[in-house]
């Protein structure tokens, strides 16, 4: 059975159909790239998948169970975690704390325990810090060396890394990455690609959907690609499948790369 299957997903804003009848499915461990010009509905699709928007029509099923219409926090707890295109870290919290916000402990720790069972709370906190530091380890010492830094003081590329760490801290089944390379130069982008390969390797069961503006970035990374244009999926398949697609070339590849 597919891990995630999306059928005819649609959302209208007034007269605008931002996402129109999009369907795809994702197996465990699979990586899907979504590309499309600016305004083609990529972020809106993520907002639908993560429960920020409720779809006007269509279904989303995780392990066969429908999840469309559930609030964002429930969807996260079911195993879909995301990052944001413009980066939405908790800017005044430090690096460890940002990752701890993704950990299960944060949502299950007892309030009364914090007052009446200080030893237990302390043990839980130590455990959370250990886990957070292990997760940072995916990026070598890059984040570990800045673990106590406030998020807003991080260099740009490390902010994006931190956002990925926070998202995988909950051990999600599906990870949604919204333009992780936005604002990076080519060197940083290449490094990020390697980082993502590392993430994939360290959690083989994790399915990833990555939205990208830049076709080159996903080429070596994903198993399948979906091309969005004006909210519609105009092509869906392996990279080789879509590369020759005329519609795609017209809509996207032929275009100047501008955001």
């Amino acid at each position, binding site marked *: 059975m597919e891990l995630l299957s999306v059928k005819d997903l649609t959302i209208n804003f007034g007269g605008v159909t931002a996402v129109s009848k999009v369907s795809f499915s994702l197996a465990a461990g699979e990586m899907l790239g979504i590309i499309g010009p600016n305004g083609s509905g990529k972020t809106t699709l993520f907002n639908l998948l*993560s*429960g*920020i928007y409720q779809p006007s029509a269509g279904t989303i099923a995780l392990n066969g169970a429908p999840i469309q219409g559930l*609030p*964002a*926090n429930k969807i*996260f*707890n079911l195993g879909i*975690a*995301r990052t*944001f295109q413009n980066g*939405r*870290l*908790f*800017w*005044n*919290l*430090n*690096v*460890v*704390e940002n990752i*701890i*916000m*993704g950990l299960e*402990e*944060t*949502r299950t*720790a007892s*309030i009364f325990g*914090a*007052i009446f069972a*200080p030893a237990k*709370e302390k043990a*839980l*906190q130590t455990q*959370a*810090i*250990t886990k*957070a*530091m292990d997760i940072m380890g995916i990026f070598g*010492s890059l984040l*570990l*060396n800045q*673990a*106590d830094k*406030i998020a807003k003081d991080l260099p740009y590329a490390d902010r994006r890394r931190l956002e990925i760490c*926070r998202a995988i801290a*909950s051990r999600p089944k599906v990870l949604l990455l919204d333009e992780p390379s936005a604002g990076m130069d080519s060197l940083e982008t290449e490094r990020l690609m390697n980082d993502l390969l590392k993430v994939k390797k360290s959690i083989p069961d994790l399915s990833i959907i990555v939205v990208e503006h830049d076709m080159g970035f996903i080429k070596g990374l994903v198993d399948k690609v979906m091309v969005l244009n004006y909210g519609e999926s105009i092509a869906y398949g392996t990279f080789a499948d879509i590369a020759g697609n005329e519609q795609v070339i017209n809509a996207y590849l032929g275009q100047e790369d501008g955001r």
Partner: protein
Amino acid sequence: MNTYILLSELIVYALFLAFIVIEDPLAVVGYLLALFFGAVVYKKKFPLQTQKLSSLYADNIKQVGLIAALLALTFPFIVNGDPYWLQVINFAILHAIMAVGLNFMTGRAGLICLGYAAFEAVGAYTVGLLTLKLGVSFWIALPLSGAMACLFGIILGLPALRVKGHYLALVTIAFGLIVQELILNTESVTGGTNGLIDIPSPVIFGYDLGTVMNLGFTSMSYLANFYYLCLAVLIFSTVVLYKLSNSFLGLSLNAMREDQLAVQCYGMNLTSYKLYAFAISAFFGGLAGGLYAAMINFIAPENFGYSLSVIIISMIILGGLDSIPGALLGAFALSIFPEKFRAFEDYRVFFYGLIIVLCLLFMREGLVPFKRRIFKAFPREAG
């Protein structure tokens, strides 16, 4: 015990007592300016020492608190049981309980509340009505005053869930006014404008806290009894709120303050967490109200007006939002200063407004900014 902490706290205490002794308003201003510039110059000249001292305090916060609490025990003796100063400090302590309480929701969780006085009102009327009309013991009524305020916190929380920022400020102002009106209009129970008179003093093991404290070698105003009671509740409130602030809950509320959408995408149920913040904060406002009613023996709706809400919020802005030491300092400073300028009584609210404006313009972080994060990484070898 660290001698530096003890010594520095003794110095601060001595400076504070000296401040209390000064009567002349001009001398007070001079004294404050001297202290302020002294502190600024010290910080400039000895940045390393300042840094060291502040991290010494931060690293040994329990010890700092313990020493401060022990020093506080001596206060009634030092002022020789003087009822005037005991009264002023007792009010300062009640304000401090409210300030640390409000700081939890406004500082830690970022939920502005301009109707906090309503929670004190709820607590005060709970103790007033229970002890006066139903003969319930104060010691049972006091926790109930917190619980009742908690309930009102949740009632306020429900309509406030959907709004943010300015709108939340408006909703909380309205809530404060509604509670006041409610008290005024349920005259048969609350006494309306006349308030509740002759609220009994607490009695513990046959000893009435409303009577002179007679220790054999000296005797002090009954206010000394209340001083110790209020101090105990302040210590309790500070410890509980400190623990909560440094728990996973505290972290989640901090994150919610940063980004309400992102925390939802990270599994937080915004509704529950906002209600936790409202209810916990309200609880301490209620306790302060319960103490107030028992100490003053007389409560009326006008004691819990909008201006009190503004006063409490200016205390936490002056001290530094999301800083428990800041809330305590702000509460004491803004409770005691006006006593020194009673000739200018009419300008009191003006003064609080000025403090808020000046802080927001020139000192966003307040007097004791919060720098300490909740979770810290374990030290690791670099590389």
